[in-house]
C-alpha cells in the first residue's frame, strides 16, 4: 500500500505580517513548524504503516526551508520526502496549490491513500485536499475523526452535532483529518538520526510538467488583500450574580427577550 501525506510548513506564531509589496505572508525571521493538523495526518499514516507495512511519501510545496519540516516527517517514520519548490510556485492560492499538488501526485503515479490535515492554521481555508481530490477525480472524505483501512477501502468517521457519520470509500481516495483522530508522536532521536539518510527529492514545476499559467500567482484567481484582527468594540456589559442555576436562568431569559433563542 502507498500513502501520500501532504504537509505545509506554517509560522510558529500568530504574529505574522503581510508583505505590503506582494500581499503574501512575510515569513522572514519566523520559525516554521509542521501545520498541526498535518501532524495528525502523518500520525494516521504512520499507524496504518505499522498495521499494514504501507510505504509513506510525504509531500510539501513551499520555499527551501520547508525541507526542515520534511526532515521531521521523515524522522517520525515516513520513508521518503518530496519538496515542490520553485520561485514560480510562490504566491499560490488554494486553486494553484491544489493543481501543483495534483501534478505531483500524477508524477508519483502509484498511490492508494492521500492524507491531508483538515486545514492549515495560517490560512484556514481547508480547500487543498478537496481540490486535489477533484483534479484527480478521486473520492474524498473530509474532517475524519477516525480512519481504518480494510482490504481496498478506507473507513472513516465524521463528527456532526447530533450524530457520527461512518463513511466507507474505495481506494484510491483523499482523506482530510481532524485533531481528534490521534495524538501525533514526537520524532524520536533514532528517527532523527535516520531521517538525514532518507531520500528527499526536489521537484520544480518543470519536473512535474505543470502549465505555468496554472501555478503560483499566475494560477491564482484569488488575492489576499488584507489580513487583520477585527476591532473588538466594548458594548453593554451585564453582570449576573447569584447561584449557578439562577445565573443560567437569567441568561436564558435575556437571550429569549432579545429573540436570540
Amino acid at each position: 500500500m502507498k500513502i501520500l501525506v501532504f504537509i505545509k510548513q506554517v509560522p510558529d506564531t500568530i504574529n505574522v505580517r503581510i508583505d505590503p509589496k506582494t500581499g503574501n505572508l512575510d515569513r522572514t525571521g519566523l520559525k516554521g513548524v509542521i501545520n498541526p493538523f498535518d501532524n495528525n495526518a502523518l500520525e494516521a499514516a504512520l499507524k496504518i504503516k505499522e498495521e499494514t507495512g504501507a510505504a509513506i511519501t510525504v509531500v510539501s510545496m513551499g520555499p527551501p526551508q520547508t525541507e526542515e519540516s520534511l526532515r521531521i516527517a521523515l524522522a517520525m517514520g515516513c520513508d521518503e520526502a518530496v519538496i515542490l519548490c520553485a520561485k514560480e510556485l510562490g504566491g499560490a492560492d488554494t486553486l494553484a496549490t491544489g493543481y501543483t499538488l495534483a501534478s505531483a501526485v500524477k508524477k508519483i503515479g502509484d498511490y492508494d491513500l492521500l492524507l491531508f490535515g483538515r486545514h492549515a492554521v495560517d490560512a484556514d481555508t481547508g480547500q487543498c485536499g478537496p481540490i486535489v481530490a477533484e483534479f484527480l477525480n478521486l473520492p474524498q472524505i473530509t474532517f475524519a475523526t477516525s480512519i481504518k483501512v480494510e482490504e481496498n477501502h478506507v473507513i472513516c468517521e465524521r463528527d456532526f452535532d447530533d450524530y457520527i457519520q461512518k463513511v466507507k470509500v474505495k481506494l484510491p481516495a483523499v482523506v482530510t483529518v481532524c485533531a481528534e483522530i490521534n495524538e501525533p508522536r514526537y520524532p524520536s532521536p533514532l528517527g532523527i538520526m535516520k531521517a538525514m539518510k532518507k531520500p528527499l527529492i526536489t521537484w520544480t514545476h518543470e519536473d512535474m510538467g505543470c502549465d505555468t499559467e496554472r501555478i503560483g500567482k499566475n494560477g491564482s484567481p484569488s488575492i489576499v488583500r488584507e489580513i487583520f484582527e477585527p476591532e473588538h468594540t466594548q458594548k453593554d456589559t451585564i453582570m449576573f450574580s447569584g447561584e449557578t442555576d439562577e445565573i443560567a436562568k437569567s441568561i436564558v431569559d435575556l437571550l429569549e427577550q432579545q429573540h436570540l433563542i
Partner: protein
Amino acid sequence: MLFDFTQEQLMIRDMVRDFTAKEVEPRDKWMDENGFDHELHKKLCDAGLMGVHLPEQYGGADGDAITSAIVIHELAKGSASTALFVDAHWLAADIILYHGTEKQKSKYLPMAAAGKIFAFGLTESSAGSDAAGIKSQAVKDGDTWVLNGGKAWITNSGVADVYIILAKTQPELGNKGISAFIVEEGTEGLKIGKKEDKMGMRGTCTTELSFDNIRLPASAMVGAENSGFKIAMMALDGARISVGAIAAGLAEHAMTIAKHYANERTTFGKPIAKHQGIMFKFADMAAHIEATTLMTYNVARMKAEGKRHTLEAAMAKLFGSEMCTKTCMECIQVLGGYGYSKEYHVERLARDAKLLEIGEGTSEILRMLIGATILAK
C-alpha cells in the same frame, strides 16, 4: 558556542525542547507534590529519550556525549527532577555500556533503551564522599557471590528495574577491593527501604536499599573483579557533565520566570527591570549561565572525542551547581514575596538546585580533586 551542533543535534534539541514545554514542564509542580510520575516516564520511553546515547544495535539512537548533554539540558529547562532521573538512569546503564561483557550488553542495554529504569548504587548511610568506606560486601561461595549490606540516597531506587551495586570483594584493599554487580529488581534478598522525604528533586524516587544474602551468579559482575571503584569514578565523570547541563537548564528556567516578573512588576513608577539593582542581578545570572553552558558542552565535546575529561567535568559540576543555587535564590529575591510562595515556582527550583552541589560528588570533594590536579601540574 565553541562549536556548532550538527543538523541532527539541532533537530533533537528542538524535539526535546518541544516535548519539555508540552509534556514535562506542566508536570513539574505535580511531581514536587506527588513524587515520581510513571505517566511521564512512559512518555519519555515513547519519545525514545531513555537511550539516546546507547548504540543503535541495542535499541539506542547512537547519540554522542554532546547529544546526551543537549537532551539533559533541554529537559532541565522544564523539570530538574526529570533531567536528574534520566541522568541517574544513564549513569548506571553506562557502567554496562563501557565495562560489560557482550552478553551483559545484549541483555541489559536494550532494556535501558526501551525505558526499564536503572539505578547506580554506591553511597551508603556512612559512606558518601568517602566512597572507599562502603561496607556492603560480596563474598564468593563456589560460583556465586553472596551480597550483604545496604545503600542510601540512591536516585531511582524504588522504581528501578536494574541496580548497579558497588560492594567490597576484598575489603583489606580499600578502594582497590570494590567490584560492581548487576542486581535486578525482584531478586531474593533485595529490599527497598525508606523513601526519602527530600527538600527538592521530589520528582525522583530516592530510597534506602538493603541486601540480605543476595545470591548473584558470577555473570552478574560487571568489569574485572576489584575494578569497581575505577568503573564508578569513570561513570561519575560522565554524570558530572549531566549535572552541569541540569544546572544550566534549571538556572535558565528560574531566570526566565524572574525576567517575566521583572518586566511586569512596577515600583516607583517603572518596571523593576528598569532599576539598576535588578538589572545587575540579571547581568550576573546571564553571564554565569552562559559560562556553565559553555563549560558543560566543552566537556561533552571532550568526552565525544574520547579525551580524558575528569578535571573539566569536575569543574563544570562545581561551578554550575553553585551558580545554579545562587541564581535560583537570586530569582526568589527578584520576585520578592511572590518568590517565597509555592505558587510562583522559583522556590521549587531553588530547592531542586541544592541537590546539584551534593549528589554525584559534593563541591568539597570536587575542590579536592580539582585543587590536587592543578597543583600537581
